[in-house]
C-alpha cells in the first residue's frame, strides 16, 4: 500500500483507553510477540514500508478486521479506500470503533 499524501487521523480526537486496548489487540491478534503494545505509536502508519510504519500487510489487515469484529462487533466498510483510512493507524482505528459503537447504541435505543 502506498503512503497516503496526508496523515489520516491527524485531527481526530484521541481515545486513550480504546487506543490502549487496540494496541494490545494488534499485538495479540497478529502474534507480534517481539513488539509490545507500548511500542506502537498511535499515529504512526500500521501498514506499508514507510519509515516508522509497523510494516503490516494486507493479510494482517484482514486478521485485524476479524479481531476487531470479535472484540467490538464492528464490521469494516464495503469501500476499500475508506478501509485504508480506517486501518491507517491506531488512532484512526480507535475513532472508527468509537463511532461505530455509538451508532450501534443509537440503533438499539
Amino acid at each position, binding site marked *: 500500500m502506498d503512503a497516503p499524501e496526508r496523515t489520516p487521523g491527524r485531527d481526530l480526537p484521541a481515545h486513550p483507553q480504546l487506543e490502549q486496548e487496540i494496541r494490545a489487540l494488534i499485538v495479540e491478534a497478529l*502474534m507480534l510477540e517481539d513488539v509490545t503494545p507500548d511500542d506502537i505509536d498511535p499515529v504512526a502508519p500500521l501498514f506499508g514500508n514507510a519509515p516508522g510504519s509497523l510494516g503490516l500487510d494486507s493479510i494482517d489487515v*484482514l486478521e485485524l*478486521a476479524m479481531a476487531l469484529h470479535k472484540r467490538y462487533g464492528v464490521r469494516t466498510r464495503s469501500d476499500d479506500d475508506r478501509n485504508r483510512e480506517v486501518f491507517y493507524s491506531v488512532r484512526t482505528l480507535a475513532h472508527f470503533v468509537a463511532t461505530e459503537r455509538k451508532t450501534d447504541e443509537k440503533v438499539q435505543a
Partner: protein
Amino acid sequence: MKLPRPTGPTPGEASSPDRRGPFDLALVVDALAGGLPGDLDRVVVACRRPAAFAAALAATWRAGAVAVLPVNLGEGRLADAADAPRCLVLRDADVPLPDAPDPALIRPLPLPSLPSDRVVAEVFTSGSTKDRRRAPKTAGQLLGEAAALADAFAGTSLVGPVLATVPPHHIYGLLFGLLAPFAAGQPAVDTTALHPEAVALALRRSGARTLVSTPAHLRSLALLDPGEIDPGVHVFSSGAPLPPRTAAMLHDRFGVEVTEVFGSTETGGIAHRTTRGGILPDRFTPLPGVEIAVRAGRLFLVASPFLPPSAPRPFPCDDGAEAAGAGFRHLGRLDDVVKVAGKRVSLRELERALLDVPGVEDGAVVAEPDPGGRGARIRALVVAPDADLSAVRAALARRFDPVCVPRPLRSVPCLPRTATGKLPRVTIERLLDLSACAVPLRLLERDDTASLLEARIPRDLPDFRGHFPGDPVLPGVSQILRIVLPAAAACYPVVGPPRRIARLKFKATIRPGDRVQVHLAPPSQGRIRFELARNGGSCTVGAVAFAAAPAGGEGAPCAPAADRA
C-alpha cells in the same frame, strides 16, 4: 524513460456507449500503444485498477515489449522493477480510461497470438529482495496457462464476471483475474476487493459469478453474515494450501464451492481440486498439458507447458506426493522453502541473512504450519546482545518481503548448540516457548561446568504490580518463568517441557532495575541447578527438572519445517 502524453481518447469521451454493459478497452489500448516509444524493451505495469492494468498490458505487448510485474506498487519496488534499459513505468494516470459504472466490467480483450518461446512478462521470484531475480515468462507459459485454465474451467467454474481479491500485478491475480477469463471470453470486474464487506458488495453490484482469492483473504469472509454471498458464486483459491475449515466455512455460510489450484510462480499451475459440499477431495488432478510422476515420494513434472523452457524435465518439485489415479495426493513441502502468504522464502537464506545483520552473533529460523491463512509461520531466535531487535527486523525487511520477516523474532542470550554446532529443531521450539516472557538476558561466561548470565530486571515489569505496594519485589514464580527457564533453555539443549521445581530457596529479594547474575550447572539427571545472585550475594537457589524428550523428538535434525497443508 518518459512517456509522451497520450494522444488518444481522454477520460469521458472514449467508448462507453452503454453504461450498464462491460466496457471495451480496444480504443484505450490503441491510444496507449500508439503513444509508446518505438524502441521500448520493458514496461513496468504498475496500475492499480484492473482495467488500466489490462489496457497497459495489452499495449505493452502490442509494442513488442516485455511486461514487468512489480512486487508491489510502492515507489521503492517500482524503481527496482524499472531498473533496466529502455524501460518505462505505466501507472493508472497514464491510462486514459473511459467513464464507467462502479464497479465496471471489462469486456474480454483478445489475447495476442505470439510464438510460445517469446518472453512476454517478467516476474520477481523468491521472497528475498537482494537475491530477487527477474524470471522471464514466455507466451507459452503465461498465455498458454490462461488458455489451459479456460480449457479446464470455462463454462463450469470459470464463469464471468470474474472478481479477484488479488491485484493484477501479482501473477496469480493476473492469470486468474484477467487472462484466464479473457481466454474463456468472460468479462472481469474492474476492482480488486480486499475487505470482506468490499468483496460482498463488489460481488453483488457486479453480478460476478467467480471469485478469485487466496486462503488468507477467504478466511476473513467469515465476518460476513450467512447468505451475503450468492451460492451461485464459484471460488478459486491459490497461493497457499487451502485449510479444510476455510473451505467448510465458505460452504456452510454461503453454499459456495472452491476450486483449489496448486502451483507456484516458478512452475506455473500444476493441478486442481474442487470441493463437494465444502469438503476438499484429497486428490489433485493435473491441469491440461501437465504430466506428473511421483518418484520416491516426490512430485515431478514430466511435462508442463508452464515451466520455464530451460527447466529440466522431469522437473523435481519441492513437494511430497503420493500417486492417486491420474493425479496425486499432496503430502507437504520437502525442502526448506516455505510459502508465507503466497511468497516463497528459503529458511536457510533467511537464516543466512539474519546472521549477516551487524551485531547478530547467532540465529535460528524455523517454520511451522500457520493456523491462520498464511500457509506457514516463521519464527526466529537471535543472539544479538548489543543490537536493537527493531534494527534487526528492519534489516531483514529491507531484503525480504514483510510477510517473510520472522514473527516473533526473539532475543536469547545464546543458542544451545551441541558440540558439533547442531541445533535440534525441538530445542529451538522449546527455547522459543520458554523465552516468550524472558527478561533481557546476556551470556557472560560458559564452559563445560557452568554457565553465567546476567539478567536485567525491567522497572516496569507488570509482575511488580501488587508485589508489594511501595515495596516492589520480583515474585518467585517470575524468577523461574522470566529468568531461570529461559536461561536454562538457551544454555542447554532442553527438549522436554519443565516438569517441576525440584528445590527452591529464597535468600534475598530481587527488585526493579536489579542486575542479577544467573549461575547454571549443566543438566544432571534431568535437573538444572541454578543460583540467582546480586553483587555476589545469593538471592535464590534451586533446581528445575525438565521432562525427557517426547517420543521421537530428541535428535531430530534441525530441518526446516514443511508447510503441511
